[in-house]
């Protein structure tokens, strides 16, 4: 029965080149990795060109897609047969459609910008070539993730981005912290991957294929039982949580900030961590079938929003704050996509907008950190706007975008999510809406806090030479080089207008409609206008609170001790004890179990063997003592034997 509704046209013409999207950055990575030191000097050039060319191709494909009519914008390209075992036929194939092309543009676009940025940022790093190689590798993996036309290809990309993320987090491997963070990230991602893998197995066991077309066809056809669909959906969700740092697998993302800042911008803000959202939207036909799973998605989204915001308020490390902000923003996306057809497009929309402004924010942060001699503690910043205007402006725009300043991207995308959450109706609707709203407020608070602590207030550092500075760190902040500011500017522009672009005339929504289904305009709980005002009020509230606390009152250059702050803050400072939880529940028992098993294997399993051998040896040692050397004892043993033999035979005879 190949007559399922979904059918992708075979790729032809320019689309038959889509594999180049992946191969170009991959080639870049290969050249740089195999080339070794010889390519040190050109490393960054090659890497950037690879990324850029991939972007260009992406644009071309996008244009070509625009050229086709709406329902014929999904093209699948069969490359080669990957794993063919009887019933289990997996092809290496790509799917260029409305959804994937959007991601392609985001990934390659932002990716290229960040490549350029890194040229300046990593200029003085001896291993810059390796850095670019890994970045290219990441691009390739990420593109494979979004372009794969079946779940196994997606899974391959899924784990490979995990690898590249691992490589880049531990890029400065001589820092133990970095190495540990990288491992943590990989482990927790693997947990998610188990979910994804199992989901794929379920699909195969149910549908006999892992291709999008077949699976979605079957799902949409409603032939799969509700239980199975839900199971698959939940397993997919587990994978999504792992990759996107959603509750309960969020703990790795903040640690991942050990990586170079461009990485935080590209992987842990703009692209990779949003893969979870992509997965859910991509699997829309499955999630559409199961209300239960969608509810779980929504709940996780909601929890994560708050969790991210709350912790975001407590940290003084600029990157950690941004990281938790990422966590909570992705929470918004999950919330959106959890709302089903109404929300898929919104989720993607926010994702793209977020891709711009969060990347911009991170790059800005990077530029600041650069200026402050790699000091990431905001409490030792302050008043920087004067010294690095471009960073200030670009960062500011990103900041306004994220808190949802009217007219900037965040304003459009986030408000729509809040709106849709309320529109869900019922108590759950109100609850979710309220949470989203609250989240918006807190976001405004901690982002403002960050912005003010960094750029405004009086400097908590000194440009004097040591004796001049009263115990304050000596810094000589300066604006970053063009290769860094350039991307920041572009992203700032993006974060300013992207949102609007997407919303105007539902452009993006319509574009995604074939994939995400049309956003049914449900009855509004509140009229959009009211809600917008409400959001604005909450946001302003958050802003005001931050302004009062961090602008009008001086900021201590050292954080107050736990004893001086509220319990909430303490908890937030400890990531709401997420790590403590993981350690006590998973890590410690695991360690004890391991030690026990090592002991068991040595003493128990091997002990048995060695014991047996020793036993025989001992027996032998004792038995040979019977060989006394006295003829008469030998004779006795013989006689004994004789008697036994005779006795035995007579016994046999009797019996």
């Amino acid at each position, binding site marked *: 029965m190949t007559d399922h509704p979904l059918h992708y046209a075979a790729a032809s013409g320019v689309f038959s080149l889509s594999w180049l999207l992946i191969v170009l950055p991959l080639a870049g990575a290969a050249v740089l990795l195999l080339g070794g030191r010889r390519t040190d000097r050109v490393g960054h050039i090659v890497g950037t060109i690879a990324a850029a060319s991939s972007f260009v191709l992406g644009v071309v494909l996008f244009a070509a897609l625009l050229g086709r009519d709406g329902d014929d914008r999904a093209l699948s390209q069969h490359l080669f047969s990957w794993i063919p075992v009887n019933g289990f036929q997996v092809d290496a194939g790509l799917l260029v459609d409305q959804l994937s092309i959007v991601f392609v543009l985001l990934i390659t676009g932002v990716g290229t910008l960040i490549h350029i940025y890194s040229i300046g940022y990593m200029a003085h790093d001896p291993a810059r070539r390796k850095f670019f190689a890994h970045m290219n590798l990441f691009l390739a993996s990420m593109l494979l993730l979004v372009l794969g036309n079946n779940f196994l290809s997606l899974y391959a990309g899924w784990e490979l981005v995990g690898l590249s993320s691992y490589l880049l987090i531990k890029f400065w491997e001589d820092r133990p912290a970095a190495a540990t963070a990288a491992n943590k990230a990989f482990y927790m991602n693997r947990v998610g991957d188990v979910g994804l893998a199992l989901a794929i197995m379920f699909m195969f066991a149910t549908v006999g294929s892992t291709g999008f077309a077949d699976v979605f066809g079957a799902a949409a056809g409603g032939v799969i039982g509700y239980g199975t669909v839900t199971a698959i959906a939940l397993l997919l969700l587990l994978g999504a949580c792992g990759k996107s740092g959603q509750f309960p697998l969020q703990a790795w993302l903040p640690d991942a900030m050990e990586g170079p800042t461009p990485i935080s911008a590209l992987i842990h803000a703009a692209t990779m961590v949003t893969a979870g959202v992509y997965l859910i939207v991509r699997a829309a036909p499955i999630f559409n079938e199961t209300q239960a799973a969608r509810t779980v998605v929504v709940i996780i989204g909601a929890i994560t929003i708050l969790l991210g915001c709350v912790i975001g308020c407590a940290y003084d490390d600029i990157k950690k704050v941004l990281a938790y902000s990422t966590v909570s923003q992705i929470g918004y996306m999950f919330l959106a996509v959890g709302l089903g057809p109404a929300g898929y497009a919104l989720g993607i929309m926010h994702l793209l907008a977020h891709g711009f402004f969060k990347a911009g924010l991170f790059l800005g942060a990077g530029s600041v950190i650069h200026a402050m001699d790699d000091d990431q503690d905001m409490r030792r910043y302050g008043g920087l706007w004067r010294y690095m205007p471009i960073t200030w402006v670009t960062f500011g725009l990103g900041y306004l975008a994220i808190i949802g300043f009217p007219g900037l991207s965040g304003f459009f995308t986030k408000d729509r999510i809040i709106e849709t959450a309320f529109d869900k109706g019922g108590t759950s609707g109100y609850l979710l809406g309220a949470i989203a709203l609250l989240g918006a407020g807190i976001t405004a608070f901690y982002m403002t806090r960050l912005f003010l602590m960094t750029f405004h207030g009086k400097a908590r550092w000194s440009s004097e030479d040591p004796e001049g500075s009263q115990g304050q760190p000596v810094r000589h902040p300066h604006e970053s080089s063009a290769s860094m500011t350039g991307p920041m500017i572009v992203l700032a522009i993006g974060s300013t207008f992207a949102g609007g672009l997407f919303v105007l005339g539902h452009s993006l929504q319509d574009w995604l409609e074939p994939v995400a289904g049309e956003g049914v305009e449900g009855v509004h709980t509140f009229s959009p206008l009211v809600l917008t005002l409400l959001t604005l009020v909450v946001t302003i509230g958050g802003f005001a609170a931050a302004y009062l606390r961090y602008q009008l009152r001086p900021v201590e250059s050292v954080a107050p001790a736990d004893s001086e702050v509220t319990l909430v803050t303490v908890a937030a400072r400890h990531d709401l004890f997420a790590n403590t939880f993981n350690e006590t529940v998973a890590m410690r028992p695991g360690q004890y179990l391991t030690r026990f098993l090592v002991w068991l294997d040595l003493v128990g399993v091997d002990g048995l063997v060695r014991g047996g051998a020793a036993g*025989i040896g001992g027996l032998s040692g004792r038995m040979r003592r019977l060989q006394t050397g006295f003829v008469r004892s030998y004779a006795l043993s013989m006689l004994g034997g004789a008697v036994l*033999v005779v006795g035995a035979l007579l016994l046999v005879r009797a019996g």
Partner: protein
Amino acid sequence: MSVDNHLLLAQTQKITPPSIEYSSLSPLLIVFAVALLGVLVDAFASRSARRVIQPVLAGGGFIAALVAVAVLHGRRAVLAAGAVAIDAPTLFMQGTILVFALLSVLLVAERQLDSSGGAIVASAAITPGSKGSTAQRVSADMQTEAYPLMVFSVTGMMLFVASNNLLVMFVALEILSLPLYLLAGLARRRRLLSQEAAMKYFLLGAFSSAFFLYGVAFAYGFAGSVELGKIADAVGTVGKNDIYIYLSVALIGVGLFFKIGAAPFHSWTPDVYQGSPTPVTAFMAAGTKVAAFGALLRVFYVAFGGLRWDWRPVLWAVAILTMVVGAVLALTQRDIKRMLAYSAIAHAGFLLVGLAGTNTDGLRGSMFYLVTYGFTTIAAFAVVSLVRTSDGEASDLSQWRGLGRTSPLLAGTFSFLLLALAGIPLTSGFTGKFAVFQAAIEGHATPLVVVALVCSAIAAFFYVRVIVLMFFSDPLAQGPVVVTRPTLTFAAAGVGTVATLVLGVAPQPLLDLANTAASSGFVR
């Protein structure tokens, strides 16, 4: 009384001399003649001459006998008034015995090993520890009586496997044993140990032969005759006073088990193997085993075949005990010859497993196994005799450390032989084991086979440990010397090793031989 007289008269009138086909007995007769000749030579030839003549004579005799055996093949008859049976199994085993004897003669005749003469003492009469003994250690002389003694012993062995009559079997037993008792005492070095070995062997041997004889008596009491065939018939006929036959099975069994060194009648083996001159040990290990097993097979297949189901359990028990004792006790041996002795015990156990099958396959397997084992063990002892320190063979295992580094060829050969004894594929040891175990499983003795396999695993451990010693540990500063000149020993060892390899890789011809022999079966 009168009845008796009349009976006597009746007997005297009926006496007719039995007809004897000398041709069929030719192998026996040749060897016997050679033995007597040897005695004469010893009596008349000069000392130096004997040292040359005797080995040549013995060797020639054996070869001649071998030829005779070859000529006789296919002959199948009961001769000398039912005293001797010539059939395929007999000839097979006589041939085997002769080959092993030939190899052993080479070892005995070896004169390059020691400072002077070979392994045989110059004059056994000289008391150890006296001035003379110091002198004779280096004297080029040797007790050339060793050769005739060996030949006599071979005669006994050949008769042992051929005897169709328990009395003849007893006589053969003594003919093969008595010379061995003496030979055991003829070691050139370590005279005390040698004499002790001789005495233990003698006393225990005599002891066991008494049991054997008692068994013979009971057999006679049961069947009114000691001819195997007649006994078998008597067993066949029911309703006799059969306690005698059970006693005789038991007691004869004891005597034979002693000879093959089966537990619990094995205790002499290690002491005697260790004390005797190594060539003699090799001869005993190979020859006696064949002879004793030949007799065992004949008696239990022909005479007591009818009682199979009665003696099988006992045989199982003995087999298991033997294998366990051999394998386990060998683990902790420190003297190489002693270790080989225990390994010999273990192998006796494996052979009994083949016998437990009580079928022609068992017969075939056992005969094949005997051949393979004999070759390997002679070669092994030959190698042992090559590794020496200033006071004779370096028989203490610790002296073998690192031999693989100092003299790889010898160590390699020895390792190969050990692996063969352990039963690793591509060696004759494996083929032999396979043959007997196959027979046993065929004969529904599977549990026995499993025990046997476990024991071979244990046994493998101590063989392997010697290899560890030779190859994986470091040589001693003043390690033993490996004598490099002795051509005769090399010849013996070489033949043994090659046979071990060939029988492991291409055993088919010998198997065919054993097969035909076994399938034609014992004459009765």
